């Protein structure tokens, strides 16, 4: 065999693990050993490569060959053809969805080439289970630098100067927060990392924990040194078992090497980290609720002030930041505040990480400079809307954010522009919606979520969201009244003003933005009893086109309520009074006939 010594990176983030990547890695190890290539090939597991849509992903370096949707049966060919005979396996290359052109190297794939990966710098490039991989990429240099050369006040200045804002969603100045905590009197202080990522459709923090856990530990240690804390907690969802396992491995390794624990790097500073498993309450993403949860109580928020920076965990000054915020800190120390300040817009510095999902060709984890437009994210990085469908809206910030329409595709993505448009930056969820997404249903979906997650402490959130949800359910069921729309707006505004914590203050956002930008859809539901996107079951109907139906009887057999009748080889008919609109007939009708159709509104008995 000739050719360079190669390293194979096999993605083992949650997405790729779900599609059997560990078995692929085991098979690669077997096959290379069988062909005697073991010494020429290094086979590494990595965290998320980001391009989840194409998983399981295998990257071969140094060429940078990107293999998509690899299955176990592809492994012998990869090993023999590529690793032994230097012939990459073309059929596993990524094809540009627009041109169909095969792109062998991941650096050339638009999904990657449009990104600027700082926080995600190591994701997919190192093994998260080996501390030396992190160190080889310059890891733990920043903690060395601050312990030997910088005073806490200098670090605070540096972080302030960089313009870094909290990546959890609020967007508060990180340097200012650190300064409050640094100045807060007290001999015992705490550092907490908020990894209670609860937004449905968001997996940024999880991917980062799974892919590069040491970067978080280094960032937290620097924070501990800065504010004068010796103890840190990572509050992570129990639903993220892989992230928890990798974090614990990383903590063990860091302790062994002297990057955590007593007298770090023999510089006289001690700091250790404990993992706390969140028990599944969305409200615990709110900082005071999170603290109550670590203290063994129900996770209910309290009034602020005092802010946690002054009186937090066990009444002591406590610094709370998101995973991505801490992960940015070692880079700021290594590369300097001016480096970060040079990226992004005037008020939003650096890059933003998004979990790009929904009706978009390239689902995955991306990092882009602040100030980029939604259009660039969705149509260039994301590859546009699949199946030739029309873009309708983009949702950021999860249940706390809003839906922005096509007219907002060219606004800059930064904290202030998104807030002005009625949404929020959030922690990084970005869900794309197309013409088949009903905006009333989406508003109901998010409110249903927040309503279940409200802690019940304050009345605007507890009763207000319930009332709004009831009205939205009525509208999606065809029982809405014309005055409901204005009432929803009035209530939403009141809840925003009156709720105790961030959960309640932002819960109306999905409703308010969908009314603001898609009022016509609400009106169609209420006035015409139609769901234009064909989603809300009470406001759609199925019918069989008698000219297209060949009477194959497949639909009649699959109908769970026996609503379809008709003789063999005769056109079938749906009895509207029995139909539960499950859509099974539409699913089952052979593609060559396409006789079943879904229409907005109700049909009369004759199916018209």
């Amino acid at each position, binding site marked *: 065999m000739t050719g360079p010594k190669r390293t194979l990176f096999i993605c083992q983030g949650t*997405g790729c693990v779900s599609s059997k990547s560990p078995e692929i890695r085991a098979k690669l190890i077997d096959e290379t050993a069988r062909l005697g290539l073991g010494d020429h090939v290094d086979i590494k597991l990595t965290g998320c490569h980001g391009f989840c849509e194409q998983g399981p992903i295998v990257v071969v370096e140094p060429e940078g060959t990107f293999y998509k949707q690899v299955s176990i049966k592809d492994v012998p060919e990869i090993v023999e053809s590529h690793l032994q005979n230097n012939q990459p396996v073309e059929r596993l290359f990524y094809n540009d969805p627009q041109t169909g052109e095969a792109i062998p190297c991941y650096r050339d794939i638009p999904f990657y080439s449009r990104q600027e990966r700082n926080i995600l710098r190591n994701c997919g490039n190192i093994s998260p289970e080996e501390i030396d991989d992190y160190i080889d990429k310059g890891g733990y240099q920043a903690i060395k630098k601050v312990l030997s050369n910088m005073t806490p006040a200098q670090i605070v200045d540096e972080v302030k100067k960089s313009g870094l804002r909290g990546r959890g969603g609020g967007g508060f100045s990180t340097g200012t927060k650190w300064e409050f905590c640094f100045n807060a009197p007290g001999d015992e202080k705490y550092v907490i990392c908020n990894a209670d990522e609860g937004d449905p459709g968001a997996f940024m923090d999880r991917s980062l924990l799974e892919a590069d856990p040491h970067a978080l530990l280094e960032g937290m240690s620097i924070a501990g040194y800065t504010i004068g804390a010796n103890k840190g907690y990572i509050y992570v969802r129990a639903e993220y078992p892989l992230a928890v396992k990798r974090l614990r491995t990383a903590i063990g390794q860091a302790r062994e090497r002297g990057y955590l624990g007593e007298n770090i790097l023999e510089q006289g500073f001690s700091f250790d980290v404990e993992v706390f498993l969140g028990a599944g309450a969305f409200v615990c993403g709110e900082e005071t609720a999170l603290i109550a949860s670590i203290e063994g109580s129900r996770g209910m928020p309290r009034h602020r002030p005092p802010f946690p920076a002054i009186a937090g965990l066990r009444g002591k000054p406590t610094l709370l930041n998101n995973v991505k915020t801490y992960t940015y800190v070692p880079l700021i120390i290594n590369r300097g505040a001016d480096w970060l300040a040079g990226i992004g817009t005037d008020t939003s510095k650096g890059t933003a990480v998004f979990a790009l999902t929904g009706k978009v060709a390239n*689902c995955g984890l991306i990092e882009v400079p602040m100030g980029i437009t939604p259009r660039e994210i969705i149509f260039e990085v994301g590859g546009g809307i699949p199946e030739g469908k029309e873009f309708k809206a983009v949702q950021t910030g999860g249940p706390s954010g809003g839906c922005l329409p096509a007219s907002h595709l060219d606004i800059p993505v930064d904290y202030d522009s998104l807030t002005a448009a009625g949404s929020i930056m959030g922690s990084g969820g970005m869900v794309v919606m197309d013409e088949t997404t009903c905006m009333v249903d989406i508003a109901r979906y998010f409110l249903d979520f927040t309503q279940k997650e409200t802690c019940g402490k304050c009345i605007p959130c507890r009763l207000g969201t319930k009332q709004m949800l009831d009205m939205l359910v009525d509208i999606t069921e065809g029982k809405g009244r014309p005055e409901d729309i204005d009432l929803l707006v009035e209530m939403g505004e009141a809840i925003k003003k009156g709720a105790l914590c961030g959960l309640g203050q932002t819960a109306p956002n999905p409703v308010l933005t969908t009314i603001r930008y898609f009022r016509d859809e609400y009106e169609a539901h209420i006035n015409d009893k139609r769901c234009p996107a064909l989603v809300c079951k009470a406001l759609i109907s199925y019918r069989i086109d008698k000219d297209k139906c060949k009477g194959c009887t497949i639909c009649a057999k699959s109908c769970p309520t026996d609503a379809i009748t008709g003789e063999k080889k005769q056109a079938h008919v749906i009895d509207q009074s029995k139909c539960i609109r499950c*859509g099974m007939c539409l699913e089952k009708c052979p593609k060559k006939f396409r006789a079943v159709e879904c229409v907005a509104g109700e049909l009369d008995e004759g199916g018209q």
Partner: protein
Amino acid sequence: MEEGDTMEERLSKIFSSYERRKDSLIPILQDVQEEYGYLPEEAMVGISKAIGVPESRVYAVASFYAQFRFTPMGRNHVMVCRGTACHVRGASRILDEAERCLDIKEGETTEDLEYTLETVACIGCCGLAPTIVINEDTYGRLTPKDIPKIFEERKETKE
């Protein structure tokens, strides 16, 4: 831990790794649930005594968090993802179909303790949406007509 141990023995093994104070309540609840699959009533009393927190408070905390359950779970834990990505790609129809196949509603367990059907906020493999997880197995890119097949296949492999 041995199956044959009494509840008292099993619990005291769990308690031995924690400081007996209020702060340990949630980790202890998590361990007890890991041990039994749910939180048995007698265990709640045991926890209350062990860390010196009133029983009412142990219940208050346990009932607040979605992770904790007070009834045994089916052998097959079916989780339908209702994350936003799954929602816009048709998760509610997947749930409808799973409810129909198992003849139970979301949150319920079949009488023979074979299946528990639940929804989760987000599994995190949004690229595979819509997805369901049954025990350790993830099924992705589903349409409603895949659901009966999945349950049939699992039944067959078991037999």
